[in-house]
């Protein structure tokens, strides 16, 4: 019982600070999560960490479900919930507070002007985010080509559901791997 509590506390003490430091999205967290899990706490071996990372990539969701898996490895279901809450709750509270504060000025001239001014930067950051994911993707140049083709298809065929493309992309790359194309 005491050990369980200690394990959960350990998870919270690692993921709460990460939640508040992870500016620029989940990808910037990966190296630090690995360092804490493998080197500092010994929650996973290097090999297990790589496996958990591979699993987290296969799951849907907003990026950092890796913390959930590490929590699960350390303390089962309660560990999974603790790590997930520890990673998402503090940053969510922060953005909630910031958004409420910001929304208070809705309708004022300054609010409109700042929002208009930030819009082209936000669009640029979304595109830059795509480039960042592309860069860390281990698949090489084939992934770049496929991403560009997918972009064109989504823009030119608005009726096409993206899940169809996701399935096609997975099938195509899986098949190429089986045949040994790259």
């Amino acid at each position, binding site marked *: 019982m005491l050990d369980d509590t200690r394990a959960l506390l350990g998870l919270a003490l690692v993921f709460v600070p990460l*939640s508040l430091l*992870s*500016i620029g*999205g989940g990808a910037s967290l990966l190296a630090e999560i690995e360092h804490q899990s493998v080197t500092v706490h010994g929650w996973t071996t290097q090999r297990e960490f790589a*496996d958990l990372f*591979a*699993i987290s990539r*296969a*799951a*849907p*969701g*907003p*990026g*950092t479900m890796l913390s*959930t*898996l590490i929590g699960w490895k350390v303390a089962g279901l309660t560990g999974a919930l603790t790590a*997930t809450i520890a990673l998402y709750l503090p*940053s*969510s509270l*922060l*953005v*909630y507070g*910031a*958004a*409420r504060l*910001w929304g208070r000025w*809705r*309708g004022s001239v300054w609010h*409109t*002007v700042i*929002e208009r*001014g*930030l*819009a*082209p*930067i936000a*669009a*640029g*950051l*979304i*595109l*830059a*985010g795509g*480039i960042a*994911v592309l860069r860390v*993707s*281990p698949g090489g140049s084939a*992934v770049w080509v*496929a991403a560009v083709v997918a*972009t064109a298809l*989504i*823009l030119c065929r608005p009726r096409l559901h*993206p899940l169809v*493309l996701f399935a096609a*992309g*997975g*099938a195509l*790359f899986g098949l*190429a*791997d089986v045949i040994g194309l790259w």
Partner: protein
Amino acid sequence: MAEVKEAGAQRAARIGLPAIFAAFFRLGITSFGGGTAGWLYREIVERRRWIDDSQFLSGASLGRLVPGSSGVNLTVQVGQILRGSAGAVVATLGLLSGPLVAVLALAAGYTRLGKSTGMDAVFDGVAAAAIGLTFATGLKLVQFSAASAGPLAITLATVLCVGVLRWPMIPVVLCLAPISIGLALVKRTGS
């Protein structure tokens, strides 16, 4: 503009918490490869029209500037716009509950079945499509937000500095934001 916002608020008042949960649950379980913003734009802005492009962009910029996953941060804000604090909680729970179960099921299956080598390639293919969705969303938003030369240059500078040159995001935004806001102010007083 004010009329559009009012209409948006009236529409928002009718959206129930179960509908918000359902929409974000769908978003969570379909956003493979981390393209949550792209899915959110498609489902919440384009399909359901619960929020408009400028609200989305405002949420996206704040969501990236504060710490945390940008997809979750955007979800918290959209939930808050739709139904206040209850909306924020319900949207976030909806977004995360599906992936939580999925990732644990995958982990359980994985330990039982062992690693299959072809899966990495499949994930690469899915990730490529997800990046395509992100790019397509970004390009649509460029059309909306950067219709004239000034804002377009700001967008290009952001992509170049953060995406290509990999400069740290916060200083880049701190440099570009005053210029871009200045441009918006000049345009406003000019027209």
